[in-house]
């Protein structure tokens, strides 16, 4: 599904990713763990099409060059990024945003756009599952939301858009154990043989709830070690220092 080959990225002449390679196949869950500043968010941003990086190397998504697509085209093709720091958008009603987003994606996929009633039914159902306070749907997007509410909102968007590849950038940080379970539940219900997840995290805690197939250690913009779920436990015990 996703093939990253020798990816390099610099910003303002500062090199952040240094020859990163990674393959993700349908049905798989990959976890990337790495210390602060190792380039995890940069990787997420580049996969989603954020501008401002100088990028070289190759990224194929379903055999096509991903790097030449606009951000919204990547969303249409099924890439979703749950932001580490979801943005607050004043004056934009959450419901209206969610509906606009869902219909933009549905339209691009050649599916019928949902009318207001169909949409509300769907969003209520999904919110309930995620224990996302429905009252928040009528508020301005992420404005005044707690950290946990923002993260849940990301997962709500993920479950609405039903992506092929979901990237979760430290969705677990700042969550209490209940919220963490809800988020993990959201991922596990979505998980099937046709889609894939890239879970970026700092702690192995989340991986108790979302069982990864592969764990990778990212240091200085490069994957230094890959393994199975046990690698996460090993990391937790030894710390990152011993992986350099």
């Amino acid at each position, binding site marked *: 599904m996703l093939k990253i080959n020798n990816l390099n990225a610099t910003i303002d002449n500062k090199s952040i990713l240094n020859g990163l390679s990674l393959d993700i196949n349908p049905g798989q869950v990959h976890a990337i763990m790495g210390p602060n500043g190792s380039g995890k968010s940069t990787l997420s*941003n580049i996969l*989603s*099409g*954020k*501008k*401002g990086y100088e990028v070289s190397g190759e990224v194929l998504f379903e055999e096509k060059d991903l790097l030449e697509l*606009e*951000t*919204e085209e*990547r*969303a*249409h093709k099924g890439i*979703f*990024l749950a*932001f580490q720091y*979801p*943005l607050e*958008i*004043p*004056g*934009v*009603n959450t419901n*209206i*945003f969610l509906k*606009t*987003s*869902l219909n*933009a*994606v549905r339209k*691009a996929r050649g599916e019928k756009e949902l009318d207001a009633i169909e949409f509300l039914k769907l969003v209520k159902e999904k919110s309930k599952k995620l224990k996302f306070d429905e009252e928040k749907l009528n508020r*301005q997007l992420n404005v005044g939301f707690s950290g946990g509410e923002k993260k849940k909102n990301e997962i709500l*968007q993920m479950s609405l*858009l039903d992506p092929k590849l979901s990237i979760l950038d430290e969705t677990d940080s700042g969550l209490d154990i209940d919220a963490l379970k809800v988020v993990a539940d959201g991922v596990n219900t979505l998980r099937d043989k046709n889609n894939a997840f890239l879970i970026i995290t700092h702690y192995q805690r989340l991986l108790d709830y979302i069982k990864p197939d592969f764990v990778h250690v990212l240091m200085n913009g490069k994957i230094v070690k890959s393994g199975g779920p046990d690698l996460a436990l090993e990391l937790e015990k030894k710390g990152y220092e011993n992986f350099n």
Partner: protein
Amino acid sequence: MKEQLKKDFDNNIKNLNLSQKDIEIKKFCLDNFIEKGFPNRKEEDWKFSDLNQLIKNNIGELSFYNDHTSTNKVDTSVFVDGLEHNKIVFINGRIEKIDFEYEKKDQIEIIDQSETINEFKNSNSLSDLNNAFTNKCFKILVKKGYQLIKPLIIYHSINSKIWSKNINLRLNFELDKDSSLRLIDLFSDTSEKNFLNIFYNFELKENAVLKNYKVDKFENKNIKYSFNNIDQDKNSVSETFILSSGSKFFKNEINCNLNGEYSSAFVNGIFSLNNDKHHEIRTIINHLTKNTKSYQLIKSVLEESSKAVYQGKIFVNSDAQKTDGYQLSKAILLNKESEFNAKPELEIYADDVKCSHGSASGSLNEDSIFYLMSRGLNYQQSRELLINGFLLDVVEKITDSQIKNLIKNMIGIKE
């Protein structure tokens, strides 16, 4: 210009039935204008908007005589749908219609004041020009305790019969004790290169409520100046909202005198400009007695090489203890060539007051755009959502819900 002014003035006077004394006054005003000319950047109030240059560059030679002997056909297609309202229709400066069809007739008086020239507390030469050339002036008196059932929309239409003309308008409003009026000024122009010069005077008696919404939305190449003087007695409220967008140039000036205790004034505005448009809002709020309040919020979205100016002055005299004055302006510059100028002025002579001002401008937040686009919205949609979101809180300041919805629709804010 001088010869043109004199000739046009004589032509104009011929059609009016004025006493010798009134003619003298008008002549005096004309001479004042001839001496001063159009305001230019050397005047403090006009330093960001040189009207003299603007007229020179965009119109060239103006003429001042408008033949008002024959009626203009009222184009009913400009009337606002879905909102029952009273109407005053100006076409090319001529009053074609005054219709308070929804109101109790004995509660509103329309007084012809064409023969009285009242002085405006505005020292700029445009009031002289206005005095010299307006030939009809009405006062609309809302009687004690009467609250108009429906809003009044004043249509300011300029049709293609005229070109390079100066049009002068004047209206006076008196809202007697406990009365209220919702007034929308709606501009629609199908002709170019004219200069519209409007003066309104409002007298708000005790407890009176005025809501004035000025809507300059439709694209046009005219130059406009509008001056509101508002005098407020005890407990009265004035709410002014300005949507400044369609004209080549528009300067809205609000002079508000809070004369009575517990009176309050609200001025909120949006500049939404593109191309090389240049608009200004100039406010002077005079807190003249204790316990008065003013609040101003101005937001701008500026594209291409457009320019917006907000000069807001809060004056507090020594008797005006417990004054509460607030003003804030925020601008989004969508282009390196666009420009926003804010000049706040606080002049405070009382010690127990609460006054604040602030101003901020910047470009559209790229991270927010990325966030929205990563959810499948294209750049255009993302931008529109952010801009409408930015403008929403000013629109939400409109206290009349029907008119708020009308203006939301005009701006394209969806609910």
